């Protein structure tokens, strides 16, 4: 049997790092079912032995109990944060499943950011990972799929809350630009989501009649104990939806998009010209007898008024005058 490592003395930078790793491992270790520190460390050693190796006891608390205060603080703080930031995921899974998920998520993906705002940035990825693992799907495999869509939707709201904005396009940006060269970026705060469940309706039903999520997660400002009503509503229905999650006047909104509008925006986001984006969207549309020029003009007017479109990073080369309608006409003339 190998000799246990000597307790770190913190008399050098390396030793300081070793002591901090030792303590952090204890803090990151999940709590037991009674919300206390586990008796065994991950390496199988007694946690009492580990704690006693670097933490002094006092006249009221053992080393284990003193370390446990920090272990519990870590988990309470981070679980509270996920609890507040993902009410929709919680509403779908229910409290018990949500807490199990949150603990497993944080165990596999500890925070990598100085800001608690980013705590859930890999939650959707984690839900994808565990969908293939036994023990998670159980009798309700669809719950995880719903939760995954909801996690994407709720993360998009965090992005919409405080991501950057860029100057929106002006008429000058599109004047004298041929449709084939007309390119736009989308606002950094705008997320386009293609989802399999109507999580937007579910989320709306969960909320008060106040504005949608006016505040996102903040380490210090979050109020633990704020416990939105647990929903007894029916789960999100299976429905292919396409959403834009955005902000306007610094309030968060979401908007359902028609498939063609979604494809155009997605293509613009990927750097295609307006002409190419419209062409792809129309070519893949199942709808017949549509006045595409009119429809796209309306969409474009709406997106422009919401400030979603921003000038492309690459300046377009000036040529002849163009407009969205002209772009559509160009597409229609060139199938």
């Amino acid at each position, binding site marked *: 049997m190998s000799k246990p490592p000597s*307790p*770190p*003395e*913190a*008399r*050098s*930078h390396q*030793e*300081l*790092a070793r*002591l*901090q*790793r030792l303590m*952090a491992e204890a*803090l*990151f270790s999940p709590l037991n079912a009674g919300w206390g520190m586990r008796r065994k460390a991950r390496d199988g050693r007694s946690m009492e032995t580990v704690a006693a*190796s*670097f*933490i*002094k006891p*006092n*006249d*009221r*608390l053992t*080393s284990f*109990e*003193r*370390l446990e*205060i*920090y272990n519990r*603080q*870590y988990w309470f*703080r*981070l679980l509270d944060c996920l609890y507040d930031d993902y009410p929709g995921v919680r509403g779908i899974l229910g409290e018990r499943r949500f807490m199990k998920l949150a603990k497993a998520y944080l165990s596999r993906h*500890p*925070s*990598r*950011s*100085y*800001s*608690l*705002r980013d705590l859930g940035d890999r939650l959707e990825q984690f839900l994808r990972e565990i969908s293939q693992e036994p023990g998670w799907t159980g009798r309700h495999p669809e719950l995880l799929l719903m939760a995954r869509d909801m996690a994407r939707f709720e993360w998009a709201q965090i992005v*919409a*809350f*405080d*991501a*950057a*904005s860029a100057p929106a396009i002006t008429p000058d940006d599109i004047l004298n630009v041929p449709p084939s060269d007309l390119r736009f970026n989308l606002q*950094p*705060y705008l997320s386009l989501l293609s989802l399999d469940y109507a999580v937007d309706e579910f989320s709306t039903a969960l909320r008060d009649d106040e504005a949608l999520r*006016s*505040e996102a997660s*903040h*380490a*210090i*400002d979050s*109020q*633990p104990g704020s416990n939105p009503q647990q929903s007894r509503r029916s789960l999100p229905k299976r429905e292919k939806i396409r959403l834009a999650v955005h*902000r306007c006047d*610094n309030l968060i909104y979401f908007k359902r998009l028609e498939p063609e509008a979604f494809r155009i925006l997605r293509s613009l986001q990927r750097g295609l010209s307006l002409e190419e984006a419209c062409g792809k969207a129309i070519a893949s549309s199942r709808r017949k007898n549509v006045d595409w020029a009119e429809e796209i003009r309306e969409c474009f007017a709406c997106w422009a008024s919401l400030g979603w479109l921003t000038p492309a990073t690459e300046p377009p080369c000036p040529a002849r005058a163009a407009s969205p309608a002209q772009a559509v006409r160009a597409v229609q003339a060139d199938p």
Partner: protein
Amino acid sequence: MPANRFNGFTDYGIGIGLRVPHYRHILAEKPVVDWFEIISENFMVDGGRPLEVLDAILDQYRVVQHGVAIYFGSADRLNRDHLKKLKRLVRRTGTPWLSDHLCWGSVDGRYTHDLLPMPYTFAAARWTARKIREASDFLEVPICVENVSSYAEFHASEMTEWEFLSEVVEQADCGILLDVNNIYVSSQNHRFDPYDYLNQISHQRVGQIHIAGHSKFEKYTLDTHDHPVLDPVWKMYAHALHLCGQTATLLEWDDRIPSFEEVHNEALKANQFIKDVKATIPA
């Protein structure tokens, strides 16, 4: 030391922490407040509502930045991305000084989001001071480090907490954000005399003072920031003012936050102690 190089030679009075539940009241009513302390990390974002609120506050009030995540004491190197965003915020707020905690909280890029106590060793002091100096050079603003409340002590420690604080601030040549509530909490948990702490630190380096409430449990005292300031802490505050002079003072109230008026009135109780200190200064 009302104005010194560690608080940008300012003479700020009593401030309170800017907290979300008070935004609407502050923006609508524009109450008279000497200054607000903001949590830097809450505003180190690229856009949206946080910056809109901050700009509206900056139009009316003086703001000082207080951070919770630099982790000067972590063995990790400084997070450059964090510092760049912090510097951008420093330029936006014009904060005359900036504070963060004398603690650690990240390991190998993983964050605990807690303010963890340091082992009080000379090596840890050297490393921490070096990081404070680096941050100060980069941010181009005076830094004050805050003593944290703690619930554990390390076998490895070679000195008391106040000796460690002094060692760090001397080596870093930085200021102190003296949290008298944290001293009280730690003194209860580790059985030392909090007045020894107050008496033995470098008073001319104190750029700001924090006061707050705490909670007593059977076996330990917890720094909860969810109560009014308790009497033993007010007494320590009065003593700290006698040692340091009138100093920018901030009430922290972060949980179970009552109305703006209640928080502000609690903070303004500090005025009485400041008057007492002024009365003792010969004309």
